[in-house]
């Protein structure tokens, strides 16, 4: 078996040992139902609430604003659908405004609501060629019917950071009474200091597995109280905002992951940003290669490039053969690489978009791995271009 070089943290980060250790206690024998009243239940409840405190602190919100969900997609769905449903109660029309580069967790939730309800409409704010939201385009979408504005903190494919303060100012200042704002901070969370970066936004979506925590653990965090309807009301858990028994082990694993991420944030950023620069410098010499959005702020862990005249499928196949795990960043549910809606929104030519590659790193990525990646990627690209 060829050595494994893992450059797909943005898809799922390696599980941290500390996470597995912390979860262990809650995966054997009696684990009380946190909603109960006896000692086992109280123990479980305490673990959940301590986890809630840590997740709240990670984004700089109050613990009462944390709604635990089974992952990031559910969190985004709850934000979009839950706030829109609440808006529909006392409005004739409800408009969901999203950027055109949102993750499908947000886009599909918005489109689902518009499909199900004649009084719901989705509007899209455009991005510029660097994949940064065009605030003028956002402003044009805003009127008194808007129920929620959702713009991600950093894009999951390109890593490009979004001007959330501008988004929030427009959403609050341009509509009488202000509009609730949501940000999918899932791709940003391993890198950015969320209490500041997302500080203006009302609702924040997180998930644990991009931080080295368990999958099926996420949260929607309310920085300010926003009217929201539960999507799964049964049971009334999470203050009536998300029914279902809370998974203690998942909460504890999630909390451990955010604690470690926060603790190491500066060190990891310092180290990985050097890798990012090194990779970009090396890759920019490869034939047909273009660094995506070279001039704008991106999370350090992501290097997104496109190759003219090379198919992602072939690139990924040969990288896989050499032990490199990477991704085209956009794939359909079958696993096939598909044209990226993010790159399309950035007006990247289709021939280039078909050759996209995302290399994403994390806390345990080493310089040796980065150097190996550069060597392997170069030989694969030369092989594919010479024979083309």
């Amino acid at each position: 078996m060829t050595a494994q070089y893992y450059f797909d943290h943005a898809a799922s980060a390696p599980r941290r040992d500390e996470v597995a250790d912390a979860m262990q206690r809650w995966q054997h024998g009696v684990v009380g139902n946190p909603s109960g009243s006896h000692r086992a239940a109280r123990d479980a409840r305490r673990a959940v609430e301590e986890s809630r405190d840590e997740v709240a602190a990670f984004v700089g919100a109050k613990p009462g604003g944390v709604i635990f969900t089974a992952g990031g997609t559910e969190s985004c769905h709850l934000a979009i659908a839950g706030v829109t449903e609440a808006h529909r109660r006392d409005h004739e029309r409800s408009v969901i405004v999203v950027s055109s580069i949102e993750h499908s967790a947000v886009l599909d939730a918005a489109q689902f609501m518009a499909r199900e309800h004649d009084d719901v409409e989705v509007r899209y704010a455009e991005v510029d060629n660097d994949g940064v939201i065009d605030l003028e385009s956002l402003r044009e979408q805003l009127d008194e019917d808007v129920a929620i504005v959702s713009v991600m903190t950093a894009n999951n494919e390109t890593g490009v950071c979004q001007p959330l303060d501008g988004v929030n100012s427009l959403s609050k200042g341009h509509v009488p009474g202000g509009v609730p704002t949501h940000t999918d901070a899932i791709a940003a969370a391993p890198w950015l200091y969320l209490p500041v970066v997302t500080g203006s936004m009302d609702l924040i979506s997180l998930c644990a597995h991009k931080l080295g925590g368990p999958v099926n653990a996420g949260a929607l965090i309310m920085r300010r109280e926003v009217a929201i309807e539960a999507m799964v009301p049964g049971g009334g858990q999470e203050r009536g905002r998300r029914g279902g028994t809370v998974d203690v082990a998942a909460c504890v694993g999630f909390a451990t992951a955010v604690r470690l991420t926060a603790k190491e944030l500066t060190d990891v950023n310092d180290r990985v940003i050097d890798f990012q620069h090194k990779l970009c410098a090396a890759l920019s010499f490869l034939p047909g290669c273009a660094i995506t959005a070279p001039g704008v702020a991106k999370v350090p862990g992501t290097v997104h490039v496109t190759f003219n005249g090379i198919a992602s499928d072939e690139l990924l196949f040969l990288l896989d053969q050499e032990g490199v795990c990477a991704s085209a960043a956009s794939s359909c549910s079958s696993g096939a690489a598909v044209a990226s809606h993010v790159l399309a929104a950035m007006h990247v030519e289709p021939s280039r978009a078909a050759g996209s590659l995302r290399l994403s790193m994390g806390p345990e990525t080493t310089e040796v791995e980065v150097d190996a990646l550069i060597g392997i990627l170069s030989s694969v690209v030369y092989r594919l271009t010479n024979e083309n």
Partner: protein
Amino acid sequence: MDSSVAAGLLVEQGHEVVGATLKLWGGVSDSGCCSVADVDDARRVAQLLGIDHHVFNYTDEFNRHVVEPFIDAHVRGQSPNPCIECNRHIKFDLLFERAERLGFDAVATGHHARVVEHDGRRELLRGADAQKDQSYVLGYLDDAHLRKLVLPIGDMEKSEVREHAARFGLPTWDKPDSQDVCFIEASKGREVFLRRRIALTPATIVDRRTGEVLGQTDAAELMTVGQRRGVLPDRDGEKRFVSSVDVSAGRVEVGRLEDVVVSRLRLIQTSLSFTHDALANGARVLVQWSAHGTAQIATLRYDGEWYLDLAKPARPVAPGQSVVMYRADEPSIVEGAAIVSRA
């Protein structure tokens, strides 16, 4: 199931095998082909066989080379075979090129046909199971393709393939064979597919011999040359066959069998393809123009352009259909293929 067993047999023979599913159609489908479930099944089979599995996305190319030409051909009143076009342009063109770039020695499929080495040349033969033979859809492959193609189940009866599938513990072993055009929903059919994409043309149905107007159709594009079923079904019980479709003139000609039979098939010159050297003017061949049709004796002739003279008159053949030529003395061996321009 056929491709799963093909993969399993190759693994058993000690080859280094990688499974690939081609994602071809991005639209709605109920054929099971290209669906997420289909890919999941293929991935599971690969896991059971202990091989890697990849999904290759060819949806743009499939649309460009297969679906759009299929629609355009209907606009011109022609009836192409999309499976043949897919084999020509996707499987045995793009996939072969990709396999070579990625360092593979051969591409294996689960088609019921055989590749046999004979006098230093590779020949394409009909599959051993006459009921399942798929040599027709592979008719355009030439010697260079055949050198890279492995067909592990071509010399098996279907029942034998099923036994291997069960032996390998493959979960798809009782899955029905895929039959229909993968991008057309079987529950809705070609008509719904075309109506969503083009305006269908009303046409007058006239008797080919007398010129008498016999009726109307609201979609000339859905009338196929050679078709009998559904042609003026309620008129007088007479069996009539479509002999020509002129979409732009809004005219469909029909007639009794003896009025419409053809004995010459004109070929699109650029479509003519031979497995090895070109056949000579006057060569006797067996020709087949549908996937499971019966082969007929014919003579390949040239009078400035190539055509086929049929030994026995036949029901008209739709322009756009592929005709595959087999050796007259060895009726199993494919010699070439071409697209019919007019009958």
